[in-house]
């Protein structure tokens, strides 16, 4: 039986793909722009020179890195490197913790009966149905009040005062990503055949050993996708970070937002291109790993 498909559906699908990719193509092309103002594309940088051009020149004609001039200037941008480091620190730490406690929560909800079960299930849905900005200002209000109280009662002054920073961002990121991890891991646990575990127990494996040798390997793909989701959410988050961050804890999205309100150069495009490339590679690798695990 042949599937009939109207050419109109194909055409519409192609147009939507164009819509999805046009901005990305533009971003990438303009990262090779020779014009510093970056409004129109003035052609790529073609020449090579021993020294970096004067940062005031409006059109860059030659650079030690040739066409990759803007990628090279990125490497010397301290603000940006700090932001990148913060972003990765936050993403790794929050992913590690939220994946661990989220998996534990999924096991608890799927396997056991305990007093606060319904309450837990309801509170896990909160971050999914509530606008991020409400969560953001809520956490801001909480930390604001808490730090004011602690600073006053402990008599902290000057630099010793507690303030918003990388710690508060990490905590908030864990809070909004745990529910997603739990959801994904629970989905995996639902298709779980308990007989395998019982078999392990019959063979005298204790519960701990059964978990590490039987349960975890089986639910590993779920844990991995949950972790990947948490990592992506953390990397991409703007709103909650915006309200919970402090001086010295700028992340890449916050840094880019700051630039957008001032002047942008092709350096920002180079950053975007690099970002897209890295994400592409990361996703490619995880897909490979998942396929091998399956």
């Amino acid at each position, binding site marked *: 039986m042949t599937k009939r498909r109207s050419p109109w559906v194909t055409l519409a699908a192609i147009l939507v*793909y164009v819509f999805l990719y046009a901005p*990305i193509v533009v971003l990438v092309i303009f990262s090779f722009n020779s014009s510093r103002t970056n409004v129109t594309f003035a052609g790529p940088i073609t020449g090579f020179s021993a020294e970096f051009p004067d940062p005031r020149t409006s059109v860059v004609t030659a650079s030690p890195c040739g066409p990759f001039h803007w990628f090279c200037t990125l490497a010397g941008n301290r603000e940006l490197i700090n932001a990148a480091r913060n972003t990765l620190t936050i993403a790794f730490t929050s992913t590690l913790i939220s994946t661990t406690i989220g998996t534990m929560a999924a096991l*608890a909800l799927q396997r056991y009966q*305990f007093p606060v079960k319904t309450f837990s299930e309801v509170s896990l849905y909160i971050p999914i149905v509530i*606008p991020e900005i409400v969560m953001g200002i*809520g956490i801001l209000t*909480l930390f604001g009040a808490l730090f004011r109280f602690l600073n006053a009662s402990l008599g902290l002054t000057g630099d010793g005062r507690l303030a918003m920073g990388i710690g508060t961002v990490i905590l908030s990121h864990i809070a909004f990503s745990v529910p997603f991890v739990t959801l994904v891991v629970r989905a995996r646990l639902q298709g779980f055949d308990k007989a395998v575990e019982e078999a392990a127990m019959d063979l005298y494996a204790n519960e701990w050993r059964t978990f590490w040798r039987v349960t975890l390997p089986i639910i590993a793909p779920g844990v991995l996708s949950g972790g990947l989701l948490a990592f992506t959410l953390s990397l991409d988050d703007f709103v909650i970070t915006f309200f919970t961050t402090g001086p010295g804890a700028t992340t890449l999205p916050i840094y880019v937002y700051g630039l957008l309100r001032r002047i*942008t150069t092709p350096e920002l495009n180079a950053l975007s291109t690099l970002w897209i490339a890295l994400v592409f590679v990361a996703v490619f690798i995880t897909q490979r790993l998942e396929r091998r695990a399956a």
Partner: protein
Amino acid sequence: MLQRLRASRDRWLGLVLIAPTLLLLTALLLVPLILVVITSFGSRSPDGNVIYTFSFENYLRLVGITAEGFDPLYVEILWRSVWLAVQTTTLVIVIAFPLAYFVARAPARWRNLFLFLILVPLWTNFVIRIYAWIMILRNQGVLNSLLGWAASLVGLPFQPLDLYPSAGAVLVGMIYEFLPFMILPIYTSLEKIDDSLFEAAADLGANAVRTFLRVTLPLALPGIVAGTILVFIPVMGTFIVSDILGGRQVILVGNLIQRQFLDARDAAFGSAASIILMALTLVVTVFYTRRFGFGEEIVKA
């Protein structure tokens, strides 16, 4: 006896496993929400702190009732946000449907690639995607250059269009940001449809339009509902898209809240605005899912 021992052990294990998550969610979601509710009844002290009182003044101000009479400023902001969210969601459904259908009916070996291609734009950063649209829409940007080039080919005079910043740019940005969140759920429900249903419809003499209205659309409804919730809630609460693509002209409830907290330093009023925002999204979500439940019954009938 053994069974009771087992049950109590299960209870403890469950509690221990859920404890970290529950503590965190309570401390960083529930307590903050309660704080926001309490703050929303307070008022602003002259130095920008919150005075905790119990007054409905902030809410009255939001619905336009002030000592000087009716002031529609905030009602307009709320209405604009809801209307923009409705427009975005509707357009996103219209744009997402053909693509989701295309992918769901594509040969199985191609499907994963097509899905992957939908996800890639999502992995570029949210803020970077807005930047891309500035590059396209601005006065001498990519779109105007292309239009100018096309006009010069046919020999027409061309004036660059004022596309950015504008309300239209905000709408385009919102659609772009949230489109994948609609495509994926619609795809999921379309993919489940058995081919034999289409054959049956054709055998019974249904034409393409009728098949679409009576078979495809009702079965895609769960996906559309899920997608609507995934798109509508964030659109209502986002403030960066309007802030940047609207050039501070398009003020949505998200912008209002952000400014109350950071520029105006009136946390009490900002909290009241976020409670209203939360109420609006909850009302829409509940209304929409209820209606969908009703719709499902019609399909069954």
